[in-house]
């Protein structure tokens, strides 16, 4: 990923920013923290989590932990364009994602937009990684449709009592705090309130869930009359959906940009796999197509950035999440076929084979989590194509 493939608005200022990022990464990213070319960018535990925590502390010390935040909150006040360039350069340098990815990319921006002065005091430990965050939105009956949320908050003296069950909560097992949506009034999206939950409070129970890949990157969270103070409500009671929208929009657009590097790397590695044995022509064909798709994914992301203005997000950015999930599934499916060829299998170490297999399994969730492909298509249809809902 060398050179910006398109002329982005911002001219020499953007080039200077990019050079600054590159220089800083070259000087501050330790070799032992660099991620392998084959990597799952969506979760971490154990040694990988420790690396990401360490990287976050380095970013924080250098003032790079949250470039898109306002400077007054420890950021660098950069716009979406610069943020995307920063993420792309980190990926190209093979830097890990910071550990507190939910805190930095979702909770922080949400608090900056909706939080009280007291809640803004939560930002410094998000930046440093001292307080890890998780998101507590989805429930067994409320996946794509958050209007079905049933976890409820009841007023008590001094605040609220929250009870219910959340599911598919990434990072909940290591989180100190969570941003939670609960129902505080009848209705659908209009009866929701956003709470900041202490994950170590009495009544909070976290149960990791085992995924198809064998990892336990997300959890069920049970809340049994968890006491939440009044000043831990974000926005007004009943205005939780407006708060959530801020979080979800960011999750589905810019955040995905950080992962394109891993996709391009995987597609490149597919090509090197072909050269390690005698592989059927049709598999070579598929590999060429997927390599092209990975390049197009990256180029379309830059194109979307080049079209950023002050209005709605460009169409090219809306399709990023959808295209990323589909592309990765196809890449790892093909890798399974290529590595099954005896002549290739003989040249692939057990560790590399295990990495391909694990990513094949993990990638099945990438058209589901963070908004299913069907929801992404709905968004494209309504917001880009302006099609009326049925």
């Amino acid at each position, binding site marked *: 990923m060398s050179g910006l493939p398109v002329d982005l608005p911002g001219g020499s200022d953007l080039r200077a920013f990019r050079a600054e990022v590159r220089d800083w990464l070259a000087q501050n990213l330790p070799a032992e923290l660099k991620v392998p070319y084959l990597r799952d960018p969506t979760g971490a535990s154990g040694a990988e989590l420790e690396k990401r925590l360490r990287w976050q502390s380095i970013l924080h010390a250098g003032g790079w932990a949250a470039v898109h935040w306002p400077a007054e909150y420890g950021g660098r006040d950069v716009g979406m364009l610069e943020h995307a360039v920063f993420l792309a350069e980190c990926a190209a340098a093979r830097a890990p994602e910071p550990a507190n990815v939910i805190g930095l990319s979702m909770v922080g921006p949400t608090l900056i937009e909706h939080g009280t002065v007291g809640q803004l005091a939560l930002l410094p430990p998000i930046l440093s990684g001292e307080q890890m965050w998780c998101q507590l939105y989805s429930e067994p009956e409320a996946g794509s449709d958050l209007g079905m949320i049933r976890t409820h908050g009841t007023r008590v003296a001094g605040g609220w009592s929250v009870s219910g069950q959340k599911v598919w909560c990434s990072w909940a097992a290591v989180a100190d705090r969570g941003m939670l949506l609960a129902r505080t009034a009848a209705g659908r999206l209009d009866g929701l309130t956003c709470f900041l939950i202490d994950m170590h409070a009495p009544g909070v129970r976290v149960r990791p869930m085992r995924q*198809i890949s064998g990892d336990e990157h*997300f959890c069920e969270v049970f809340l049994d009359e968890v006491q939440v103070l009044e000043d831990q409500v974000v926005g007004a009671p009943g205005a939780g959906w407006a708060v959530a929208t801020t979080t979800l929009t960011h999750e589905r657009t810019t955040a995905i940009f950080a992962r394109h590097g891993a996709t391009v790397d995987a597609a490149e590695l597919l090509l090197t796999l072909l050269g390690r044995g005698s592989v059927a022509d049709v598999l070579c064909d598929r590999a060429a197509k997927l390599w092209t798709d990975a390049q197009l994914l990256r180029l379309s992301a830059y194109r979307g950035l080049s079209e950023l203005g002050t209005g709605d997000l460009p169409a090219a950015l809306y399709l990023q999440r959808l295209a990323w999930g589909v592309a990765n599934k196809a890449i790892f499916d093909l890798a399974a*076929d290529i590595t099954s060829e005896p002549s290739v299998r003989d040249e692939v170490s057990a560790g590399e084979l295990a990495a391909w297999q694990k990513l094949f399994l993990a990638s*099945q969730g990438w058209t589901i989590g963070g908004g299913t*492909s069907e929801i992404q298509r709905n968004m494209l249809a309504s917001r880009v194509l302006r099609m009326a809902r049925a």
Partner: protein
Amino acid sequence: MLTENELKWQALAQEFADSVLERDRAGLEQPGAARRLMPELGAAGLIGTLLPAEYGGAGLSLVHNTVIQEVLSGSAPSLAAMRAVSAVFVPVPLMQFGTDAQKARWLPGIAAGESTSAIAFTEPDAGSDLGGMTTTATPATSGYTLNGHKWYISGSTEADFILVYAVTAPDAPIESRLSAFLVPTSLPGVDAATGIETMGMRGLSHAQVRFRDVHLSRDDLLGEIGQGYEIVNYGLAPERIDIAARAVGCAHRAYREALRYAGQRRQFGRPIRKFQAVSHRLADMCTTVSASRLLVLQAARQFDAGEPCQREAAMAKLHAANEGFKVCDDAMQILGALGYTKEIYPVELLFRDIRVLRMGGGTDEIMRHIIQREEYLALGEL
């Protein structure tokens, strides 16, 4: 489409699946799980279905086998995979090429599920291309000495004997280069202990098998010297039909789980089956599974009738495994994160287990090659 007798055996298999396999689904992926279930499966009469009664079998057809395999595979793909070797892969060539003594020695045990077997021809340099085989069986006093290395041999660690293909005439053309042997795993020099960790089919072993100066008697030779290639090819069609049936089983079960779930899961005020994106996907899944099943039955009936069926077996395997994998993928998409986790639904297991069926017994590419070759043969253009 199925006879009354075939439906009866389907019901027997379903009863076994419901009462035995579904009681502990999590346990089905434990190491050795398939082997532990084989005696119970044998006692239910569900293994030796192709064998004559004198060897403990039921004297049934390959169609019966596919019906049973589809059911078992929907609950326990690993068990169905182990059963495949005992019910089809070994008995078919053994019945055709074996001596009465060999049949009497091995078949009753595997029909009862008291012993199991494996088939070993894949090597590091010989997967789709048998010509690359390097395991050798050289003449020795009163028999042969077997040396070599096989890998990804399913069920080999648990097996009591292995049907091994080895080179006995290295300079001969492939049609007469190989021979087949029935190798007891208790013989000195047989090492099947090195397991290979796989993504799916974890209920049975997949091991590297090494043979170091294994002494075989002449009684261990299956068929004649140099008949190995013929024996392999004789068994390929029923093997592929069996694989296709198991793929149908995985896909059908995944589809049914998705169908039920989509009818119950409510989002945005309605069951998700009311969204066209879901309902049309389910319709395509239903059609795909049905088409695969018909291809399997067509191939199996041709085999039972003694008709050539290489093309039909390849078509059945290609379609059932390839399209069945997509069905499992669609099922996972419909179930969302519930399909992605190991918590409640078997969809993620079916997805992982069906994947190898696109490769084992001949890759998708080999199946396409066979289909086209058979087509041009039929046209007289080869």
